[in-house]
């Protein structure tokens, strides 16, 4: 099955000078948090590459560059383990019938 998610910059951990685009993404529910993190790192590298980043940046893309969070009750944010599938994240933390909202920040 497929999962829809809104991928936002962490409101506290991402500064105004840092990459902060909100992304609208669909993928298989079997994808892990690490897959999502690596996807973000790749997209950021491609976008920054178009504005003059050093060549070869794509070869060093890693799921460790970003940490993924989900908002819990009372405005808290929980770090998501990279091995969790998005399906498990949805079942355990989200439980809502709308796109999963996740947050990213540089590790």
């Amino acid at each position: 099955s497929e999962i829809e998610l809104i991928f936002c910059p962490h409101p506290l951990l991402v500064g105004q000078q840092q990459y902060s685009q909100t992304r609208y993404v669909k993928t298989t529910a079997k994808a892990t948090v690490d897959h999502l993190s690596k996807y973000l790192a790749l997209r950021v590298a491609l976008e920054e590459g178009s504005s003059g980043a050093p060549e070869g940046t794509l070869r060093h893309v890693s799921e460790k560059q970003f940490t993924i969070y989900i908002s819990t009750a009372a405005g808290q944010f929980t770090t998501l383990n990279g091995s969790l599938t998005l399906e498990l994240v949805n079942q355990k933390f989200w439980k809502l019938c709308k796109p999963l909202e996740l947050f990213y920040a540089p590790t």
Partner: protein
Amino acid sequence: PEEVIVTDITINSLTVTFREALVARGFFRSWEME
């Protein structure tokens, strides 16, 4: 959406496909964005 970005990501031999749109309207089926 007029354009959807498609990207494959592989970790530990598991490849998954990500599809991304610039806007959510018309892209998400489970919740229509206002």
